[in-house]
């Protein structure tokens, strides 16, 4: 701790900060632009000027930039000093020289950092009479809108996009007051994190294009704390809605998970909620007939009848449904007839991941800590496409070592100096995957191999770290050298990390990763492990220990059960159609889901489920962190939360479960692994000063007129039994406990940067702690190493090992129903190495026929240089490819001769 003096008042602060961060943490309103808590200081905008005094006798002082000045012991400054104030007002005036003053038509209006700072400094009169510079705007693709005339040259966009996120297609061009920020020509932004520009840019230059299509001002949006549904990392989000449609997603800070940013799938994938494929009414289908919509009451009546009269129920859960929904189904079907709802292989992998984290000594690292790792081994995962925010974290992690080496004279917040000193140097990052990965460019070494070889490399590394860990026999010299380099780097690191997961579909790879982390732990290193899983609640579903899908099929075919209830799950994406079809032999197939899909199309009863935007629930992310999401809008019409549908047809639950707290309470009692999951957020009866937390801001407009076209009476706000949040502007408007923060807004701070005011100190955890409750902690005992390294990969003539390839845009089920994501999803293809393709007499784009147990499918060929011979890549679940990938199987591939096509 050090003492600093601000306007003659003494304050105690953490040492090692700059004055701007310190002042903001102390609650002062000091304007700034170029500084950002994650991007740090560069001193470009000169907006954060304060007066610094040598000592208490110095009355003159000098202007310094707070963001570039260390807040050392005894530092004396004045924010209020007239000269400093005048300077700051002057800077804003200059910022505004070329600004078009077009707030009324600007999407940033009302949540604009530039507006906030202009008001804060008191600049209100334009004195510049000259010409403003003007620019042409670019089309940057479906996600980000570009309006360069509003630019104030703070350089945040390029600093985020290039320096932080590793993007290469956004730049600063020209100079003086004419710097242009954009691409070298119009075109889709290439970075997977481009959407963050909308939040990073303090003006309306880069804004959310998806929002533009159904625009709503921030103050008119109803918002609530939520969790992203589009991968297993569990990034925290704030969805905004109006008129019953979802308008946008913005970041919700969680220092333990996603920090300040989101990936583009998470930010722009939300539009499935508004999709025309939404199921809005219950459907009953007579055998062979068309589905007939019925009322909720009628549907429930019918279902109760079915349940009462049935011979047995199998419940098929879902890794994209909440714990509560899965548990409700488990209660309905009974623990023995509850299955996880993933492919059998997927289930083995998820269970293995759980076992590794529960029984071994390596800790699952919170996603928010991964950027601090100083040596990383990635075994098998294409993180950029499978768990995108890990990509962003790893881009920071490779700077840790060089930063430490360069430290000393350079404070960590001095970004220009740090980057100048670090230059191109990067700390250890080793990547072993079958196909090239986006992160290869920053990796120490990127190794291409078949899954078995990747696992063998891991076993080798582990055995180098701890002699007790089994090695893989018969390694080549190249592998040995690489393994030694990896072992070395991990051993020397202060925070080594192993990343692996379910992406490749290989248990051996997961086991190898566990061995490496455990061996590190055994040698006394603080070994971190990060195991990725495919879906938002994959971990929760795995912890619930349902049976495999095959169990459901058996139960139906043996006649043990004649009723199947499928929860939020398109089984045709999970298993071969021939298997799923067998389930439909049951007398009743009841599907609960939010979007029409191949499964709901065949079900005899379809119940319209609320999406994450209209329901509450708890998800467990791949780290093992239980997190609660809340409705941002009430479900419309007959749509209901899945657990409510299930409660309505479960005799024992109907009366007992009034709110979601009742469900999670029962879950915790019945399955002790979930103990604490209910603490992820305050319960429904939580109040602040007797009030619920308002989902609408005080300035929410049109409340009395919003539905005047339907009725001139102001409708009552919908009730919310399940949470301490209200669908209203009445209620608590201050800072609630972190899991309940519905928006960042503070007097004078209308933009997302109001977040500073919600943190204990800027960049630090939210006041009251970052949300979420970890359910898994490592075991403090010697590891039982996995003993069996796989044998070397050997290709069999005429057969190819299929490995899954992921696409951030396209591989995930729900997000592809957002037009922007759909636009960027590639069309289906089969990837081969150039030499294998040549062997088949196929060139890029040529058609092949893939023979899988699921059938034959024709695909054009994409050549991927580094793909090992004998390995073919199949993109996962791209629109049109759902359900055909069974990673790990061998398949035949034949060239389709020209002209023979046409099918």
């Amino acid at each position, binding site marked *: 701790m050090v003492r600093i003096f601000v306007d003659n008042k003494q304050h105690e602060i953490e040492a090692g900060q700059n004055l701007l961060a310190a002042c903001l943490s102390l609650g002062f309103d000091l304007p700034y632009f170029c500084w950002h808590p994650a991007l740090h200081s560069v001193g470009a905008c000169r907006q954060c000027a304060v007066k610094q005094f040598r000592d208490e006798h110095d009355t003159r002082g000098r202007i310094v930039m707070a963001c570039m000045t260390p807040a050392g012991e005894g530092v004396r400054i004045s924010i209020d000093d007239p000269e400093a104030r005048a300077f700051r007002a002057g800077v804003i005036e200059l910022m505004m020289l070329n600004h078009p003053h077009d707030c009324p038509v600007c999407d940033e209006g009302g949540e604009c950092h530039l507006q906030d700072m202009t008001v804060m400094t008191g600049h209100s009169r334009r004195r510049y009479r000259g010409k403003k510079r003007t620019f042409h705007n670019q089309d940057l693709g479906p996600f980000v809108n570009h309006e360069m005339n509003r630019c104030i040259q703070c350089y945040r966009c390029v600093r985020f996009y290039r320096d932080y996120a590793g993007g*290469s*297609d*956004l*730049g600063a*061009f*020209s*100079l003086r007051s004419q710097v242009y920020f954009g*691409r*070298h020509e119009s075109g889709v932004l290439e970075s997977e994190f481009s959407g963050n520009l909308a939040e990073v840019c303090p003006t309306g230059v880069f804004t959310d294009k998806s929002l533009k299509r159904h625009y709503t001002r921030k103050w008119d949006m109803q918002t609530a704390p939520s969790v992203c549904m589009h991968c297993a990392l569990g990034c925290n989000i704030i969805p905004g809605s109006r008129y019953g449609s979802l308008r946008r997603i913005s970041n919700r800070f969680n220092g333990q998970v996603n920090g300040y940013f989101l990936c583009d799938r998470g930010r722009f994938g939300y539009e499935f909620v508004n999709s025309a494929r939404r199921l809005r009414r219950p459907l009953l289908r007579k055998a062979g007939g068309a589905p007939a919509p019925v009322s909720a009451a009628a549907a429930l009546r019918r279902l109760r009848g079915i349940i009462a009269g049935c011979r047995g129920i199998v419940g098929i859960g879902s890794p994209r449904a909440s714990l509560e929904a899965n548990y409700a189904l488990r209660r309905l079907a009974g623990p023995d007839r509850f299955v996880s709802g993933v492919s059998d292989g997927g289930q083995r992998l998820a269970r293995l991941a759980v076992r590794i984290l529960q029984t071994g000594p390596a800790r699952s690292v919170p996603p928010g800590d991964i950027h601090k790792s100083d040596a990383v081994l990635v075994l098998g995962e294409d993180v950029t496409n499978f768990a995108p925010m890990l990509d962003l974290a790893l881009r920071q992690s490779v700077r840790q070592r060089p930063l430490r080496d360069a430290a000393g004279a350079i404070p960590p917040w001095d970004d220009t100096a740090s980057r100048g000193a670090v230059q191109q140097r990067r700390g250890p990052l080793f990547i072993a995957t079958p196909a090239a990965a986006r992160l290869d460019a920053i990796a120490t070494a990127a190794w291409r191999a078949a899954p078995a070889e990747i696992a063998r490399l891991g076993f080798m590394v582990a055995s180098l770290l701890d002699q007790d860990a089994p090695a893989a026999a018969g390694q080549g010299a190249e592998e040995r050298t690489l393994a030694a380099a990896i072992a070395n780097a991990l051993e020397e690191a202060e925070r080594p990390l192993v990343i692996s997961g379910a992406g490749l579909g290989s248990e051996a790879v997961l086991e190898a990763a566990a061995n490496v982390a455990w061996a590190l732990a055994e040698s006394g290193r603080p070994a971190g492990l990060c195991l990725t899983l495919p879906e938002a609640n994959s971990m929760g579903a795995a912890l619930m220990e349902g049976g495999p899908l095959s169990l459901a099929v058996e139960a139906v075919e043996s006649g043990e059960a004649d009723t199947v209830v499928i929860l939020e799950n398109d089984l045709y994406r999970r298993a071969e159609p021939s298997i799923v079809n067998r389930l439909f032999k049951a007398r009743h197939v009841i599907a609960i889901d939010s979007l029409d899909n191949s499964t709901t199309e065949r079900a005899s009863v379809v119940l319209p489920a609320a999406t994450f935007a209209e329901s509450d629930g708890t998800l467990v992310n791949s780290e093992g962190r239980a997190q609660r999401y809340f409705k941002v809008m009430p479900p419309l019409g007959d749509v209901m939360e899945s657990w409510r549908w299930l409660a309505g047809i479960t005799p024992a639950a109907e009366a007992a479960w009034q709110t979601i707290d009742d469900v999670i309470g029962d879950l915790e009692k019945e399955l002790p692994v979930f103990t604490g999951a209910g603490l992820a957020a305050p319960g429904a009866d939580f109040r602040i000063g007797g009030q619920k937390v308002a989902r609408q801001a005080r300035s929410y407009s049109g409340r009395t007129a919003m539905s005047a076209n339907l009725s001139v009476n102001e409708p009552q706000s919908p009730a919310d039994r399940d949470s301490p949040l209200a669908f209203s502007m009445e209620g608590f408007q201050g800072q609630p406990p972190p899991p309940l923060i519905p928006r960042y807004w503070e007097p004078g701070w209308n933009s997302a940067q109001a977040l500073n005011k919600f943190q204990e100190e800027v960049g630090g955890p939210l006041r009251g702690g970052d949300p979420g409750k970890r359910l898994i902690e490592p075991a403090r005992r010697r590891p039982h190493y996995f003993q069996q390294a796989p044998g070397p990969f050997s290709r069999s003539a005429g057969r190819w090992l299929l490995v899954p390839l992921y696409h951030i845009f396209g591989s995930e089920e729900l997000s592809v129903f957002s037009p922007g994501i759909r636009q960027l999803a590639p069309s289906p293809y089969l990837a081969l190495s150039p030499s294998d393709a040549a062997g088949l007499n196929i060139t890029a784009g040529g058609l092949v026929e893939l023979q899988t147990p699921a059938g034959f499918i024709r695909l054009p060929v994409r050549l991927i240089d580094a793909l090992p011979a004998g390995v073919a890549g199949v993109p996962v679940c791209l629109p049109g490819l759902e359900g055909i990938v069974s990673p790990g199987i061998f398949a035949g591939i034949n060239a389709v001769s020209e002209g023979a096509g046409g099918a």
Partner: protein
Amino acid sequence: MEIEAAMAPYPVRQAAAIDALRIVQRHQGWVSDEAIAELSKLLEMPIAELDGTASFYNLIFRRPVGRHVILACDSVSCWLMDSKKLMSHIAGCLGVDPGRTTADGRFTLLPVVCLGACDRAPAMMIDEDLHTNVDPDRIGEILDKYE
């Protein structure tokens, strides 16, 4: 080849960016978008970054220029020696405004920062030749030497 050679002094390829841009310019007169795209591969730097560099420097031409480039000093010492008159004379002779290229593609007239010939003002350069103490009335004579 020439560009590879220009990389010799530097520990990273990107450092040769300005040398490389100028080599292209020497051969082609200016640096086209296509040239930027090709150089970006050679220099192993993203197009946006290379163009960010190229567009920063005034002696890298990102638009086509005439066969001869006139760099006429518009800084203070020359201004004191009536360079404005000189500039308007040249512009008059060529029939183009400063910053523009003549219709026949012969000359491009560019105002430029002090040429460090202040003791011989007004000064200008045509291609690589420095002309000093330029008498506005003799402009025609000078320009005639450049076909």
